[in-house]
């Protein structure tokens, strides 16, 4: 259960820093194209893992519901971290 949230958080982190403007916030410079691609794929993969973890612990119907909630919560956390870094 907690795995689902953590993987969603990881996925959101990867997807966020693969965007140039957020990479600038986190690392003060944009990442190279290759690293961005890798991060994007990793983020997508982690999202799949998170959805799979949801389906594993709750069954498909409830699992996907849980997955949506995890992604929402994780994205909020990432956005708050980014806006906190920005200050």
């Amino acid at each position, binding site marked *: 259960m907690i795995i689902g949230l953590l993987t969603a958080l990881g996925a959101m982190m990867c997807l966020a820093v693969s965007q140039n403007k957020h990479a600038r916030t986190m690392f003060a410079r944009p990442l190279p194209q290759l690293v961005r691609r890798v991060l994007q794929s990793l983020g997508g993969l982690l999202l799949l893992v998170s959805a799979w973890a949801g389906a594993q612990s709750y069954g498909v119907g409830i699992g996907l519901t*849980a997955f949506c909630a995890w992604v*929402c919560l994780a994205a909020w956390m990432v956005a708050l971290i980014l806006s906190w870094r920005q200050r």
Partner: protein
Amino acid sequence: MDDDDQVKGQEETFHGGFRQSMAWLHTWAGLVLSLLLYFVFITGSFGYFNTEITHWMQPEMPHLQAELNVAEQSQAALDHLQRVAPDASRYLVRFPSERANGAIRVFANLKTPDAKGARNLNQLIDPDTGSPIEARSTGGGNALYRMHYALHYIPYQAAVYTVGVATLFMLLAIFTGIVTHKKILADFFTLRVGKGQRSWLDAHNMSSVLALPFMLMITYSGLVFYTFQYSPGVAVLSLGAEQETFRTLNRYLYPRIENPQATGDAAQMVPVAGPLETAQALWPDARLRFLQINHPGDAAATLSIGRWPEGIARRGEILYFDAVSGELHERMPAQPPSSVFASATMSLHEGHFADYYLRWLYFLSGLLGAAMIATGSLLWAKKRRNQYRGRPPRSIRFVERANLGTIVGLPLGCAAYFWANRLLPVGLDERAAWELHCLFVVWALSFMHAGARELRCAWREQVGLLAGLFMALPLLNALTTDVHLGVTLGQGDWVRAGFDLSALVFGVALLFVRRRLPAPEPRSQPIIAMDSLPSPKIGG
């Protein structure tokens, strides 16, 4: 919604681009009933914890941890019912859910009203002793939950249709919001703090985009609950407008086994242990939900046993027995595919399947919905305020005040509801109704206060009061009851302790919000409220 799209001339709305006209529609479809929708979201979010709130609001209720021995306990409950309500047309025994306290609810439809004129009997009994538990009368969490679709003080049908129209507008606002938002993916994680209007827009976008699946689901499924009331057109035009048509339609979509009429001949009923054994053999791991006897003591008596639903299903299976012979009747008929879909949608809305982890996520998503509406409404006022130098028109000032009176006023009312539960005399007549009166009186006072005070002052004062009321709730609980944190934590009564602790956390969080609110303007300067409301941290 994008703020650049709004500022162009009104009259161009219908001759401008797609995005511009959709932004217009988003603004107005959203704004018109936004305050009602905020009410629906806040009370509905509380509804996810209805059982827990009720448990907190009835401090007399013991913290029961009895093991369920269904056969023994249901026979004891039925014996109790036969003793206190011998002349009844229906007995219902409801077993506690995993969330609820261990008490068993017994219910009887009386054939003749009792001394107080009541047509039914509704008690909670202690499964260990079999005797009824007396607890204070309260609306509990269910009163809050019920208000999110049935409102209060107005007739049920009128309320349901009002909420329905608001829900339809919200669905329209969501769709137009999606097509208007220029950079959903690019702005996915963007929350710029301390940038005035821009920050409010970010907060509005974040609360809606990130929770978009939830928003779409909760809004659409809200309409599905009253499918044929809200959209009778298709059925009327293809099947006719008679009441009977709708009844037949509903029976087809949600088939159930009809109970036979009473014969009037007395008969001896079998003990429930036999049917319960059959049920447990058919559902080895199931948790039972209820046991019901129709026409007890009659030759046509039926016994039905229901289980909690599995997975995302909304209704658990029910077994029907002949209560005289103990024979199992036919099983429940299957639903057609369209109603399986509708049931699943409604089940997602209610979230009965959710464990505490998911339940909190539901609750937070609900609050996010409220935040989306609140930020949208604040954004509307702020954007228009920025377009006027000097004194803005009355409509804008009204929306600003109404925003405060609702966004903070309604939670103030809810806090007052909890306070009233502890402070009103236990023996008061119509006590449950008075608790709700307190909610609405405090809400109305908040409106008046918002209208009377300088706006920034009013914001600070109301948020401060709200923080204080929530933080003091555990203290009030300790002063007025013996189920305060010191006791509940020791007992492992996590439901009551959780309520107190959550109130404390909310209070502290609100205190932080209050610290970030701007200081009131000195008297001599013109009042430019809203302009420097704090940039949001968590959506509102």
